[in-house]
């Protein structure tokens, strides 16, 4: 196939799932040339996953429905060829890593080899491909480990390695960063860039717009199944149409826009979509020159030319430090009595792994706390000590003054509600209302109070329209909101959220942020375990960093000094605004 021809081509593609009233994709036309990294953004339910499935043949061959229009991938008409043939042309990495693992192989190495084995690749070449893929994903040291013994982030890298070992000309990824920590996403971006430079065409659906801005050559925005914007990231990601559609903007654009409102960013100066673009734009403003952000891979912002220079001169000296937003306003120190007290808590699993090594902390009322740390730092173990699911091997855990060794989890649940990351472990009821009702009923609230709590939680998570629906009939992002509502309705003084923003779109994250602030204002506390540093910085106030089972940092975001910033940066990276304050 000549290089000039598109590798992925959709002509007026419309797809309606069997039994659905509305199309999931509407008249999508799109051509992706070889080696391009094309991102697809949109709100939950906008059609991103359907587009990924369509480009790999799972729509219409696996998920049936009515397809109109044409979809050509690497020269193959998707509708006319079975998946078994299409896999030689395009590989799909789905969003749920656990079920992407074949289950038929017992080691990471063999799992990566599974696809090439099925393609009949000669053995010596399989070995070469597997070694390369494991190295590319930095997994060589895990080659003999069971795929099921890996962390979520490691599993995510494994399924990407497994897809790469098939050497597809086209790689399609549905939310590839959802399980990865910030260093992991950076490494993945570097890998995808290298692959695109080698000619691989990459299409990926993603919510994290900052990552999209850094990585993609091109961005397609979907809304209700139709393309509403298509172009280079610099043009699309700061397009007002994205905000109108509820997709939002990447943070650098938001920061610059805020500065523009405050008169610290020239009105006709284009909004940057990357951190580097923001820094460069600010530097240019300071120097009295217009912004020419060459770092932005497609450089759309620089096109407005030098006539902006005169306007830039009118803008007062703009400091990086003043541009970054102030962290959330400080609240007075929490009043006693504390909600949870851990005193020198050690925890050793039956396998001998020492997960907590002398953790002492106090969680008070009205606090907004981020619990950060690398995979394996002990975050999950610590969270399970907050309601007695795990009891210290040594030391004491007090929940509302009660030693967790002398009380039950159900009693602790009156004080601490936990929403775990995998919401599938939680949801069971036939309707959203029943699901939300379950917790407060267990806690013995009177019926009228149960109903009041359910109503309040449903409204807080914007689920009114879905109250009579089965949770599994909702898109995954809304399912997460149902899980949060179900624990919120328990009306506990402390709410613990494990990776609450995973898979949520901009509007969902905004909703969550607002909710956390409201709870804090009501003197309820929220502890968030998350890799989403920007969300934590913007929404929370206290930051606890765990490292190898010990507390490496326990401070407030607005009190981060140079040492704390270095510590944070070394372990989990920095929120974009902190990075901005300390750049230049």
């Amino acid at each position, binding site marked *: 196939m000549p290089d000039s021809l598109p590798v992925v081509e959709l002509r007026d593609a419309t797809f309606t799932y069997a039994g659905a009233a509305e199309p999931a994709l509407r008249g999508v036309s799109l051509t992706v040339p070889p080696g391009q990294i094309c991102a697809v953004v949109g709100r939950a339910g906008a059609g991103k996953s359907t587009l990924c499935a369509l480009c790999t043949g*799972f729509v219409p061959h696996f998920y049936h429905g009515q397809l109109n229009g044409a979809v050509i991938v690497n020269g193959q008409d998707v509708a006319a060829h079975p998946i078994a043939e299409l896999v*030689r042309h395009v590989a799909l990495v789905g969003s749920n890593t656990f079920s992407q693992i*074949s*289950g038929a192989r*017992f080691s990471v190495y063999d799992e990566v080899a599974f696809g090439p084995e099925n393609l009949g690749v000669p053995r010596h070449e399989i070995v070469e491909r597997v070694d390369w893929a494991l190295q590319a994903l930095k997994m060589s040291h895990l080659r003999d*480990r069971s795929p099921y013994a890996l962390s979520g982030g490691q599993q995510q890298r494994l399924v990407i390695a497994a897809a790469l070992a098939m050497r597809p000309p086209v790689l399609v990824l549905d939310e590839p960063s959802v399980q990865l920590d910030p260093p992991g996403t950076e490494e993945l971006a570097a890998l995808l860039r290298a692959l695109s430079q080698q000619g691989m065409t990459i299409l990926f659906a993603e919510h994290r717009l900052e990552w999209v801005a850094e990585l993609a050559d091109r961005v397609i925005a979907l809304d209700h199944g139709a393309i509403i914007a298509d172009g280079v990231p610099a043009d699309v990601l700061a397009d007002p149409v994205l905000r109108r559609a509820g997709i939002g903007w990447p943070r650098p654009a938001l920061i610059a826009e805020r500065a523009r409102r405050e008169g610290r960013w020239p009105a006709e100066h284009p909004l940057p979509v990357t951190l580097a673009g923001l820094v460069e734009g600010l530097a240019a403003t300071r120097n009295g020159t217009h912004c020419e952000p060459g770092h932005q891979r497609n450089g759309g912002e620089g096109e407005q030319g030098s006539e902006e220079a005169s306007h830039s001169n009118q803008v007062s000296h703009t400091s990086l430090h003043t541009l970054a937003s102030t962290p959330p306003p400080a609240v007075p120190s929490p009043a006693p009595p504390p909600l949870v007290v851990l005193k020198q808590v050690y925890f050793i699993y039956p396998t001998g792994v020492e997960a907590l090594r002398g953790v002492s902390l106090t969680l008070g009322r009205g606090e907004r706390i981020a619990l950060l740390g690398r995979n394996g730092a002990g975050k999950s173990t610590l969270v399970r000590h907050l309601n007695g699911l795990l009891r210290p091997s040594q030391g004491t855990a007090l929940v509302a003054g009660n030693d967790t060794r002398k009380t039950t989890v159900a009693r602790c649940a009156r004080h601490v509600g936990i929403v775990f990351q995998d919401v599938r472990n939680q949801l069971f009821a036939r309707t959203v209302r029943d699901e939300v009702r*379950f917790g407060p009923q267990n806690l013995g609230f009177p019926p009228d109070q149960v109903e009041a709590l359910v109503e309040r939680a449903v409204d807080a998570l914007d689920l009114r329209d879905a109250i009579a629906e089965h949770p599994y009939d909702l898109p995954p992002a809304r399912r997460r909101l149902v899980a949060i509502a179900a624990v919120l309705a328990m009306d506990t003084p402390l709410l613990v959220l494990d990776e609450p923003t995973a898979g949520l779109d901009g509007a969902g994250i905004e909703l969550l942020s607002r909710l956390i602030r409201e709870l804090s204002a009501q003197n309820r506390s929220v502890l968030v375990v998350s890799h989403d540093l920007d969300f934590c910085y913007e929404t929370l106030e206290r930051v606890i960093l765990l490292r190898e089972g010990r507390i490496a940092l326990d401070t407030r975001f607005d009190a981060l000094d140079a040492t704390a910033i270095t510590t944070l940066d070394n372990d989990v990276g920095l929120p974009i605004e902190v990075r901005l304050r300390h750049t230049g």
Partner: protein
Amino acid sequence: MQRTGLFLERVGFLQRLNPLTKLTGALLLIGAAFLLPTPLAGAALLVLALMPLAVASAVLRSFVDVLLKTLLPVILSLLLVQGLFFPGADPATIMLGPFAFRRAGLEFALTTASRLLIVAGAPLLIFQTTHPIILVQALTERGMPRSIGYILLVALQLIPAMSERAAGVAEAQRARGLETEGGLLQRARGVLPLVSPLIVGALVDAEERAMAIESRAFTAPGRKTWLHDVPDPPVERSARLVMWLALGALIVWRAAVAVV
């Protein structure tokens, strides 16, 4: 750590053999346990064949451990039930304390137990000395459908994975105030929230896993490659032929004895 069922990562005699050779040997031993005229043939074969093989394969301790844990309760209940309640006219009894055990019943129980030791022991030794993938590969190369092989392999890994998920579900629901201890009514109330997420999760996973193996070319047409080598030297092929002949001879001899 890999979830490879009963397989033990050791180096020894049986680990070097082709799985088909081991399967044929197991079949011969099981056949012999049933066809040889002595009631304790199975026990004798266990001591004379399986245990030396387990020693040569460095799995003796685990082999005996699993076999005892699995079969001891069965054998004891066989002896009790058949010894005390065996039907038939033979009045001979053996007194053990206040209990009169029927001799014929005990003989029947011992014969059955002896055969059970081989029926369970021979496959156990195969599973302990054969990596599941190697076993499935050997069988698939001999014509077993790949889908059956996949199901066998996936079951080995997904059963522990399901049990982990069950623990996750229990955690999530206990964190929502569900009492999982207490009276029968209390426990019955907990069944739906504990079981339903497990089933729904498994169904969703099954659909997504079907997609995943499709995207990994499981159904792609054409010749497949196996990453690992399963050697089958001529000496093993000859050994299998001899074992089949021995089994055939046993059957013929036994049939002839029965006719005479």
